Every structure is written in structure tokens, then in C-alpha cells.
């Protein structure tokens, strides 16, 4: 097997040579910002090139389309992607949470059917968890799935379906038993095909004015019964496991990243260029203090990742650092976006499309988009409940 160092060096060379710069549209910074066909086609093509070069799923088994190497190999490739600021891996729900779920708990047939298309990007996946009336209270999902012979019949609606208008499959949480003894026991989990009659989507316009999410409607949509993941009534357990992949509390993802992380260097660069009240923002002592706070925050997140690997230094609460990562990472992105606008002074008032805007309105847009991650996947407030209850042992709020 090729050494991790050699693999990392090859990846470094490949990304240096291949990261694209020839596009003239707004590049999505996260997988939740893919709002046009042009963006989707471009990113899907990029994912395929990365996969075919061997830098996505490098550690997944060969028989399911992976590279048969180790997690350390994939980590080296992901580091090279970050270093060269490659575009995101667009099929995030496939590579990041449906994929590892199927790899860890699926049947042999499911693994062979679904995993190769996830890695190549040929099969885009979406997630059907939230409903219009049930967001944070996920266990109360009401979309109905009624067994009818070899099929389930779906009726209801899901919302905030990222890439739902492009997806071939949906990981779906549905209510199979409305009379179960508690709300959780009535739920089941499906790997549902989207290309069946009765499934439709309408785009949702985000606070930025752009698109990226849809609402998905199911009207007597029939899906095969063997798309059930786990047993009927076990949906909550499977969904919770899926959320652990999503929040980074459990590993096994195909690699790459689906949200561009703001390097503190970018903020420092902005502070050098931006003019605040007639002077470079970098000279403002209050801005300098906030810059250092931002750098310390970023440094602490990196140090947390390092410490998480050293068992004696996390022995008191072994799961705390992974449980914290979603909250920290997404709030950092939101706060740095907000701070960037302070650095811009009067120019913070422009928006995307204004020629006088700094960096094309990049920071305005990225601040507003940052809420997709502090709200989606379990809001920061839900994350604090989870950390308080699971890492610190506080009594349940509900």
C-alpha cells in the first residue's frame, strides 16, 4: 500500500494542477448554496474528477467503489483540497451521511447498489427529515408511509431539502405507525427513490435572494418496501445515527468537505484591504482585538481536533469534543462573517451585484448563508441541549 506521505504528496500535486478557476458564476461555499443548474453541473463534474483521481472515498472498500486505502490516506487528500482551496464536494449528503450509514449498517446489496454512485456524484442524495411543522422537534415527523404489498405509499411533505430538485435518492424519516406507544416508535427510515410518480419539489428562496433548498411533496408516491433501512419502527435510531455523521460526532465519511472553512488569514487579508472610517481596518485597535479573538477561536478548534486523538487528554468526557464540533464550527462561520462586515465599514452596506462592493459582496452573502448551518442539522440551541445532556449529564429539557 502506498504510504500516507507519498499519497498526500501526489494529492498535493494533483490539486495544485487541477483546482479550477475558469468559471464566471458565484461559486457555492457550502453544499446548501447550489441554486442553479450551472453550479450543480460544474460541481458534480468536479466531484467526479476528484473521485476518479482517487481522492474521494480513498479509504472505502474497493468493492463499493472506494480506493481500499486507510482513513489517514483520505485525510491527507482532504488536507490537500483545503490547502489548494478546491471547490466543495457537492454530493454532501451522500458522501457525508447516507454513505457512511449504508457502509456501516447497510446490507451487502445496499452497499453495492448505492455507494459507487455516491462517490462518483452520479447519484445525488438528499435528506427528508424536517417538515413544515416539525423542524427541531424531529421526532414528531408526520409524513405517512403505509405498507401496501411490496410497497409503501407516501403522503406528506418535507422541507429544507438541500439539492432536492437534483437528487435521485432521499434518506427519509416517515411515520409508519401513528398508534405507536410513543412518537419515536412510530418512525421508519427509507432510502427512497425520488424518480417515482407523486414526488414533486418547489424551490425555496433564501434570505440571500438565492436558491438551494426545496420543499418536497409526496402524493400517493409508491416506493419499494425493500428500501426500508433497518426494521420498521426503528427509524428514530437510524436517524440519530445519521445525525451523528452529519454533525461530525461519528467518522467514516467519504472525505473532502462540503462547507468551505474561513481561514483566519482571509479575515486578516480583508482587514488589510478594507477601509473603516477613512483608515485601514487593520489600524483600528478594536478591530485588532477582535481579529486576535477570531484567530484564537480558529486555533482552538484546530487544537481541539488534535486533542480528540489523544485518549488520556479526553478521558473525563471522551465524546465531548466531537459533540461540540458542529456548534463551534458553524457559530465560528457566522461570527466571522459578521465580523468581516464590521471590517468593511461603509462598504458593508453594499450587496452582491454592486460594483463598489468589496470582493463582490462575498462577506455579506457568506454571513447570511452561515445561518443555514447554525439552523440546519439541528439548531445551535438543539446542539447545546445535546452537549448539556449527553456530555455533561444534565437532565433532559423535554
Amino acid at each position, binding site marked *: 500500500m502506498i504510504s500516507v506521505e507519498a499519497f498526500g504528496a501526489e494529492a498535493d500535486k494533483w490539486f495544485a494542477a487541477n483546482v479550477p478557476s475558469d468559471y464566471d458564476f458565484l461559486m457555492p461555499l457550502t453544499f446548501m448554496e447550489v441554486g442553479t443548474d450551472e453550479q450543480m453541473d460544474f460541481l458534480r463534474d468536479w466531484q467526479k474528477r476528484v473521485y476518479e483521481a482517487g481522492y474521494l472515498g480513498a479509504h472505502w472498500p474497493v468493492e463499493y467503489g472506494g480506493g481500499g486505502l486507510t482513513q489517514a490516506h483520505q485525510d491527507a487528500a482532504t488536507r490537500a483540497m483545503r490547502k489548494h482551496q478546491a471547490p466543495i464536494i457537492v454530493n454532501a449528503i451522500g458522501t457525508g451521511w447516507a454513505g457512511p450509514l449504508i457502509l456501516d449498517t447497510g446490507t451487502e446489496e445496499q452497499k453495492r447498489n448505492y455507494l459507487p454512485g455516491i462517490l462518483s456524484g452520479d447519484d445525488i442524495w438528499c435528506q427528508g427529515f424536517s417538515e413544515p411543522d416539525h423542524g427541531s422537534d424531529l421526532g414528531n415527523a408526520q409524513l405517512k408511509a403505509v405498507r401496501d404489498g411490496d410497497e409503501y405509499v407516501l403522503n406528506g411533505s418535507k422541507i429544507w431539502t438541500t439539492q432536492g430538485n437534483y437528487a435521485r435518492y432521499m434518506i427519509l424519516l416517515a411515520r409508519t405507525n401513528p398508534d405507536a406507544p410513543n412518537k419515536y416508535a412510530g418512525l421508519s427510515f427509507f432510502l427512497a427513490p425520488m424518480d417515482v410518480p407523486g414526488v414533486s419539489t418547489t424551490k425555496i428562496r433564501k434570505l440571500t435572494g438565492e436558491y438551494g433548498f426545496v420543499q418536497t411533496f409526496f402524493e400517493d408516491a409508491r416506493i419499494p418496501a425493500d428500501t426500508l433501512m433497518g426494521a420498521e419502527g426503528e427509524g428514530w435510531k437510524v436517524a440519530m445515527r445519521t445525525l451523528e455523521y452529519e454533525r461530525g460526532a461519528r467518522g467514516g465519511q467519504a472525505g473532502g468537505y462540503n462547507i468551505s472553512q474561513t481561514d483566519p488569514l482571509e479575515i486578516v487579508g480583508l482587514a488589510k484591504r478594507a477601509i473603516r472610517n477613512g483608515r485601514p481596518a487593520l489600524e483600528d485597535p478594536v478591530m485588532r*482585538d477582535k481579529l*486576535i479573538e477570531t484567530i484564537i477561536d480558529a486555533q482552538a478548534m484546530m487544537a481541539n481536533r488534535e486533542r480528540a486523538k*489523544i485518549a488520556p487528554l479526553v478521558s473525563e468526557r471522551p465524546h465531548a469534543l466531537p459533540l461540540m464540533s458542529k456548534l463551534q464550527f458553524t457559530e465560528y462561520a457566522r461570527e466571522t462573517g459578521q465580523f468581516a462586515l464590521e471590517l468593511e465599514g461603509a462598504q458593508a452596506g453594499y450587496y452582491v451585484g454592486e460594483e463598489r462592493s468589496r470582493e463582490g459582496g462575498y462577506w455579506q452573502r457568506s454571513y447570511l448563508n452561515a445561518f443555514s448551518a447554525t439552523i440546519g442539522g439541528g439548531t445551535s440551541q438543539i446542539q447545546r*441541549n445535546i*452537549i*448539556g445532556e449527553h456530555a455533561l449529564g444534565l437532565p433532559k429539557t423535554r
Partner: protein
Amino acid sequence: MTAHLSKIALSEMQAELRDQAMRFCADRSPVSKVRALLTDERGFDPKDWTDIADLGWLGVAIPEEHGGLGMETGDLVPLAEGMGRYLMALPFASTTLAAQAILAGGSDAQKADWLPKLASGTVATIALFEPSGAWALNAVDGKTKTFVMDLDASDVVLTSVRHGGETRLALIPRDRIETSRREVIIDETKRSYTFDVPEFGEEDLLPSTAPALERIELVANLLQAAELSGASMACIDYTLDYLKTRKQFGKTIGAYQALKHPTVDAFVESEKARSLVYAAATHVDKQGGNRSDGEIAVRMANAQAEKALSFAADRSIQFHGGFGFTYDCDAQLYRRRAMFAASQFGDAAFHRARLAELLL
């Protein structure tokens, strides 16, 4: 820009030292003893002091040729962390800092004379601050010293003085200091004194000043960061105990999000501090690369650790309700610890200002 400083290494020896320190401090410094010592004139248990000397803790960062164990500066971190976690009062930091200053700026004779003693249990202290309140260590008037820890327990004081128009460091035996008194400080687990600098001679001076002052500042900030990070873990555990047992309106109060969420935020800040402290322990001695690397890692850790403990202890007082307002509630011990630490060698905002000079 500083990503390389986030790497953390933990040797087996450090892991063992950490276990030993946590066990020893937990055993020797239950809160009943911490509280009993608050009104003790000396402020610490001499038996604990001789025992940590026997364990070798005082020689950890002193080379073997001078009677120490010759380990790394970062190996001091688990010791300070354990003492901070259990609010253990000992003249560990002052003695360690005096030894580090002698190592960095002392003559061969001074090293030979003092280091073996300091490694084996002689108490020493440092006197760098003056009533002006300046945190800069290199411009003193050398008349009156303040915030001198454990002076009465010390055999020798490393003090900054004015000599030949410059700031210099002198080693002055305790018994030559005539005018001194105890100061009333906010952290009652510590003993602070002020004294008037006595006459001194050329032979009392350290040959080299700047490297010794730099060394003191670096190691003092590292020890303080570790101490505060350890204390913030304990403070959060103390708060959690209350949130899990106290009932109001028929509910255990930890179920209320108004208390749960800020406690989680305190925990997150404390975990960040811990990671930065371990990173600082890893990089404090690193040679090569950027010569400020050690200082950057240490100041980041200390700024974060002070912020974490201040917030955790402030919320701990509030979340204990009426009990939190009493002397009997331990939250005040942690809050006072953080406030006093911020007053020594610079607070978090001071460290960030210095980091801005180094990084921006």
C-alpha cells in the same frame, strides 16, 4: 498562519505525570483543606511542599547537572493544571519562576549555588511588579515591590532593581529585607506581600537581564494558563453538581435551558482553553521556525484560559442563586482566582494586544 502551533504531543512520561499530579492534588487538596488554609498565615501545608519536592516536581524543568530532572518546560503543565484544578496552595509557581530566571540569566556560581536547592525544596519567589501597576517587566524604579507571592516562606527573592540607570535582576536573601507587609488580595488562597528593596551589591546581580525576564514571562503565562484551565474544569463540575440536584418549580434546574445553555457555553470555552494549553505545552520549547512561536502559543492559551474561567465562575455564582451569594459557595473561590490571575503578568486583553503585535 499559526496552524502548526495547534499540534499536540503527549509523551508517556507526561501522561504518567498528569495522572500522578491529578491523584496527588485531589488527595491532598480537598476543598475543606483549601478553606481551612484561607485563614492560615503561611497559606499552605509544609508537608505537601516537602512531598512534591520528594516527587521531583520542583526539578522538572531544571537540568540534571543542576540537580533537577532535566525534563521539558511543557512538563510543568500537568503539575500546574492539577494544582489549579484543586485550588492547591503551594509556592510552586514562584519557586519555579525564580529557578527559570536563574537558569536563563544567572552566573555559573549563582546556578550552582541556588538551582540544586530550589530543585529540592527551598522556597523562592520573584518580585517584579511595582505600585505603578505596569505589566512591562523591563522598566522599574526598583524602590517598592508589590504582588510578591509567599515572601515569608521564601529563603531568597529574585527581584528587579534599578542599577546603573537600567533594570537589572538581583538575588536577595529574605533575611536582608527589613520592611515588608502582607497585602490584602482578592484570591485568599494565595499570599502576597509588598517590600522595600534593600541595599544590594554588584555580587547580588544576575549578569543577564533580558533573557531572564523573557523566560519568566513565558513560563509564568504557561503556568497560569494551565492553572486557570484546570480550575475552569473544576468550576464547571461544581456548577453541574448543583444543576443536577437543586429543584425549583418541580424540576431539576439543569433541565432549564436558561441555565443549561450558558453552562454548555462555559464548557466549550473551557475545552478550548484546555486544548490551547496542551498545544502551548507542546510548543513552548520548540526551537527554530519563528522564534515567537512559544510566546504566541502561550499567550493564546492564557488569554483563552482566563476568559474561560472568568465566564464559568461568573455564571457559577449566578446559577447557584442565593447560595451563590454566600461565602460558603465555592464559586467565589474560582471567581476570585480568575480575577487575581488577570491582574498578574497581563489580562486577556493585554495578551491579545501583544498577539496583535506578533501576528498582524
